[in-house]
């Protein structure tokens, strides 16, 4: 932690920012508590709760058995009583052992009660690959949660956003799935993209959901992205700038709600769009953004067909060259942008043929 005591702004890792946000909300609101595996003495496997046990004690930082169904269900039951549980699903890949409580109950009970019931639960969960953890510990899966009505889905790319979005998530009266990518948490045991560690004010602040952020302004191509891929896209954009290609990087920050207006405004400006996604290619975020753009071709003139980069519908392989091949890397993003700059939509090709 580097600090500037005059302004109260320090440089924090994303993990530190998340833990700080949870701690500040726990100070403010006694109904907030945390449940999960290894969140106490260990401080969370990905350090999202470091230091909280010492401050709040075991009644509010509750170590659970390895029983995700039990404690996700307990979160539903406690939230129905007016508490605000935070439940950590250590790896998002583990949702398979407890999804009934999440998508059949947490996500639907408010609706099935006709609005009588509120379930203010935050699920925190580690996502993403890039460190050779193979198919059961490397997925993103945020689109799977986003597909289910009734869950808000937050996918931060840096410490500043993570703090504000976490505070917003805890204050929200709905279930929120807060997905932190392991490769931007700033852990001491996993290399990470340094752009994710940034200046974070000490005081509490909330970032509203559904507001994307323009990470880098550009005029030729829009890269729509989230999470760790934002950091990769920023590096690719810097390289492309050397070649004279001006890239706009749009960080969605939340995918439910989705900032549709923000996407459309950026794509209308640049006329070219690449969706860079670490989740699976088919039936997911990249298809959703492509469909959104397609539905607005009456107001947006594309200068090239929509392009998507994502995991090509295979499980995440273990071996380094295999994993690097399926998870889009900086070079793949840069290549995709170059391809977009070469491509021409059919109406331009036809005009060219007539001329």
């Amino acid at each position: 932690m580097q600090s500037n005591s005059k302004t109260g702004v320090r440089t924090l890792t994303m993990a530190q920012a998340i833990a700080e946000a949870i701690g500040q909300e726990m100070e403010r609101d006694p109904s907030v508590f945390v449940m999960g595996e290894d969140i106490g003495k260990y401080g969370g496997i990905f350090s999202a709760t470091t230091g909280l046990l010492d401050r709040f004690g075991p009644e509010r930082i509750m170590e659970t058995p390895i029983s995700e169904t039990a404690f996700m269900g307990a979160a539903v039951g406690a939230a129905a009583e007016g508490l605000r549980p935070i439940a950590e699903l250590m790896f998002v890949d583990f949702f398979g052992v407890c999804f009934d409580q999440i998508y059949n109950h947490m996500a639907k009970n408010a609706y099935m009660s006709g609005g009588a019931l509120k379930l203010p639960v935050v699920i925190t969960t580690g996502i993403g690959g890039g460190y050779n953890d193979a198919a059961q510990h490397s997925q993103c899966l945020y689109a799977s949660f986003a597909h289910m009505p009734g869950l808000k889905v937050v996918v931060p790319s840096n410490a500043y956003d993570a703090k504000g979005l976490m505070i917003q998530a805890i204050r929200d009266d709905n279930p929120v799935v807060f997905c932190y990518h392991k490769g931007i948490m700033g852990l001491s045991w996993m290399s990470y993209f340094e752009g994710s560690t940034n200046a974070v004010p000490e005081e509490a602040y909330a970032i509203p959901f559904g507001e994307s952020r323009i990470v880098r302004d550009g005029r030729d191509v829009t890269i729509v992205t989230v999470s760790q891929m934002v950091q990769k896209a920023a590096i690719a954009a810097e390289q492309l700038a050397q070649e004279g290609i001006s890239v706009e990087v749009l960080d969605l920050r939340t995918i439910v709600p989705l900032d549709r207006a923000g996407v459309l405004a950026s794509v209308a400006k640049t006329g070219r769009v690449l969706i860079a996604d670490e989740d699976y290619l088919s039936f997911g975020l990249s298809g959703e953004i492509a469909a959104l753009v397609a539905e607005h071709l009456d107001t947006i003139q594309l200068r090239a067909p929509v392009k998507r980069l994502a995991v090509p519908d295979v499980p995440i392989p273990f071996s380094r060259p295999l994993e690097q091949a399926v998870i889009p890397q900086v070079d793949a993003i840069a290549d995709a942008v170059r391809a977009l700059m070469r491509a021409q939509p059919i109406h331009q090709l036809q005009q060219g043929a007539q001329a």
Partner: protein
Amino acid sequence: MQPTREHLLWMYEKMIEIREYEETMAKVYLEGKLPPKIQKGLAFDIGAGPVPGEMHLAAGQEPVAVGVCAHLGDDDSVVGAHRSHHFAIAKGVPLDAMTAEMFGKDTGLGRGKGGHMHLFHVPTKFSCSGIVGASAPQACGAALAARKLGKDWVAIAFFGEGAANQGAFHEALNLAAVWKLPVVFVCEDNKYGISVEKSVSTSVASNAIRGAGYGMPGVLVERNDAVEVYAAAGAAIDRARRGEGPTLIEVKTDRYFGHFQGDPETYRPKGESAALRQDDPIVRLGARLRAEGLIDEAQDQALRLRIAGRVESAFAFGRNSPYPDPQDALKHVFAE
């Protein structure tokens, strides 16, 4: 623990009300679903009629609901499963709004969005779920909240014997015991998981035995009897309120109807349901009340008439209420 006079009369009244409700629903449910009103070749049309969808009735299982809920107040939570009308009625969920929900009406508990398997009533802390085994973890959460808020409230998870083979059951019982939560797990053994007999699905004769595996008392109520359930539940609920932790209770009970209405019940010996009805727990409790002079024949008749009127009025309310505006389907996904 023996019931007071008031509790005996309350259990009797609520059992009659539940039975009246379920027998009425059994008939109303079939309206519009049977030939000749439906297309040829169909035996039954589940989506037709004023009460569409599945319908799981609890006639015969009244003792479990009243024997437990006699000990509860509005601040205590109940989480039920797919067959939960008896629990809702015993917990005090308003009959009108509950019935309107089953008719899919705007005046229903969930404004027509839940239906009979998904009833939510916040003031009495009642909810239920169509997913087998899902109630146990949620009751743990309600119990955890009670403890965090410093209240002596308890939470009850009701589920069937089939649900006791779900992973959720195992996880929830362990969690409740580890955290010493004020929760009581009440298993209704009605002998069948849809069509599958308990001996085919379950490794032990009684789920009460399983309590030992979690370090909690396991109590078997061998008779489908309100007073016996009352005694076992009372001890468990008192223990929970004292902060001494959870209890598992299994009650051997009887399901008079099929798994759902329209179930051909080919798996059941002929005449089984009729034989079960010969040992009706309502008749038994009525006989005791008369023998002890707590109620006479005229009072019994008057009580039954009052209940029939209450149920009739709830069904009329459900039937005559307006449907929601189709556009309302888009509301309530998220809290405002």
